[in-house]
């Protein structure tokens, strides 16, 4: 004869698996995040590794008036396309395509003003809505250099040292490294990887408690020769196992994607092998159980599915708080972080990703503290279901 909590567990699993629509949503949610993450990181890597000034394409109207400028642009690997004079609409149209970074227009009187040493106007046309900012800066730098060269030459011709025009000289030193810049990024990425623990079991937890209460089947169930803890544990394990499947899938997929991407190019590291990953997944099992336990303990008190969902959507923000607080306060990794569920999982994965030897303590703490919390939640739920107040409200 099956233990009664197993009977309840199997029935809840069967019922949940038959709800194809919410199951499909869960699968989509679980798979979407790592895929989206992979896509975004991949684009970042592509942008970081793209050769500088690779084929900056510049359209120029009236190029013949400034042959030196054209030569300098070509030196900086900027391809100049000479154009006949265009109207404003045609220019806008041209700049709309990502191929052309910007357009220079030298007015007809350019040579004349230049020769007369009046400021010779050059028009720089660009479209700030396209992502060509870096390329435009490169072009502007060339223009700037071209201008100062001419200025220097003219001053020299008058016997004045061009250095007079440079009372100060600014030199730039950037101490930021790619690694430091991406540290914050990878922290927030890893934080969200554990979210399925709270999402995947949610509908099963709510449906088997508040839902059953709303459909008025809980009273019948409570009148069966099964103890309340057997009912609660069956429902808890059903919701928990969905969450475990969800988070394991998510971590495995994320691992596959992150190890496939050349993250070193943007200064991130993912030094996790399959053995580490298995350990992290195992240490995260109680997190799913804790989430399911909390959801059951909260949802069973709601009168309807809807009420439970709105309360829980608020409750689910709570586990995110420590992680956000730690990253905002910029705290260094400390042992106490492994005691706080969710934060402990995030910290564990982040430290593993760095590739150091953590020793068993973080794993044990991560596993144990969540499990303890889960058991407390389930104990509370069983106690609550037994109480007369609850029976009356069912």
């Amino acid at each position, binding site marked *: *004869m*099956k233990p*009664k909590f197993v*009977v*309840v567990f199997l*029935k809840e699993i*069967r*019922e949940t698996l*038959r*709800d194809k629509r919410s199951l499909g949503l869960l699968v989509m949610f679980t798979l979407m995040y790592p895929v989206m993450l992979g896509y975004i990181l991949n684009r970042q890597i592509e942008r970081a590794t793209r050769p500088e000034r690779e084929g900056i394409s510049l359209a120029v109207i009236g190029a013949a008036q400034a042959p030196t400028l054209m030569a300098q642009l070509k030196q900086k690997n900027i391809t100049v396309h000479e154009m006949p004079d265009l109207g404003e609409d045609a220019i806008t149209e041209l700049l709309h395509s990502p191929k052309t970074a910007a357009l220079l227009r030298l007015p007809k009187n350019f040579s004349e003003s230049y020769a007369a040493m009046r400021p010779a106007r050059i028009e720089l046309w660009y479209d700030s809505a396209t992502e060509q900012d870096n390329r435009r800066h490169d072009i502007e730098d060339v223009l700037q250099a071209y201008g100062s060269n001419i200025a220097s030459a003219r001053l020299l011709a008058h016997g004045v040292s061009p250095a007079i025009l440079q009372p100060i000289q600014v030199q730039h030193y950037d101490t930021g490294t790619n690694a430091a810049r991406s540290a914050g990024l990878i922290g927030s990425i890893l934080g969200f990887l554990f979210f399925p623990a709270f999402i995947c079991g949610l509908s099963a937890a709510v449906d088997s408690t508040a839902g059953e209460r709303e*459909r*008025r*089947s*809980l*009273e*019948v*169930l*409570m*009148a*069966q*020769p*099964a*103890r309340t803890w057997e009912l609660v544990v069956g429902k808890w394990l059903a919701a928990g196992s969905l969450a475990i499947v969800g988070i394991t899938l998510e971590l495995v997929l994320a691992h596959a994607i992150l190890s496939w991407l050349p993250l070193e190019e943007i200064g991130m590291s993912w030094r996790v092998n399959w053995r580490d990953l298995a350990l992290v997944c195992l240490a995260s099992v109680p997190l799913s159980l804790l989430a399911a336990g909390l959801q059951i303990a909260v949802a069973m008190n709601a009168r309807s599915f809807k009420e439970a969902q709105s309360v829980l959507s608020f409750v689910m923000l709570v586990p995110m708080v420590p992680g956000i607080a730690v990253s905002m306060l910029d705290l260094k990794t400390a042992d106490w972080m492994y005691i706080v569920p969710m934060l402990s999982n995030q910290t564990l994965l982040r430290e593993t990703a760095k590739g150091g030897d953590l020793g068993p303590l973080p794993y044990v703490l991560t596993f144990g503290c969540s499990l303890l919390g889960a058991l407390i939640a389930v104990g509370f739920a069983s106690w609550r279901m037994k109480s*007369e107040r609850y*029976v*009356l409200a069912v």
Partner: protein
Amino acid sequence: MIEAKEVRKQFGPVQALAGVSFSARDGAITALLGPNGAGKTTLLRTLVGMLKRDHGTIAIDGVDPEQDPMTVRANIGFLTDQFGLYERLSTREYLTYFGELNGMGKALLRDRIDQVAAMLGMDDILERRSKGFSQGQRIKVALARALLHRPRHLLLDEPTRGLDVMSTRAVRNALVALRAEGCCVVLATHVMQEVSHLCDDVIVIAKGHTVAQGSPLQLCERTGIANLEDAFVSLVGTDEGIVA
């Protein structure tokens, strides 16, 4: 055999049961009559040990539901005013779930489900999921669930409500068959015709008190009113208060 003596139950300021005493014999159908709010649901919940009484004694085949609720529940088929169906399970899966919760093995369950389905005439819905079942089909499934584990006692809250004539007859015939098997059936109902045709004993409760127990005939004799419905009304009392 169900025996209750002076059972009282209070919820805050509300005295839900103010002294209910009765006995329901084996091999008999006992009607539980009482206006809405008389405390029938509280009484039934107390009998299966979901609620604890404040005062009095309850014995179901000699077992106190408060001391040993599991033994008592295994021996009771309970049909409340809620059917408690699961829309995503077929009738057979539903019955299997509750059978297993009552500790029944696979082979036994298969036989029993077929028996109960034949008894209630519900072979056609056995493999269907309960979504979209009619009221009658729902009640049949719930009743089948209550009968499945061959309980010695049945606590049924209005089992024939919403049923068509054929189904009502099927349920009544089933109850008569169960009585013949020696079951102790307690039937809360508002249908007087059912009480006079079916029940051997009647318990009338009003405002948490047992106001009378006896056969339908005895109740009529006691009140001096020939019609059972009128006798019931006279027993529960008029606006001025409770008679008896």
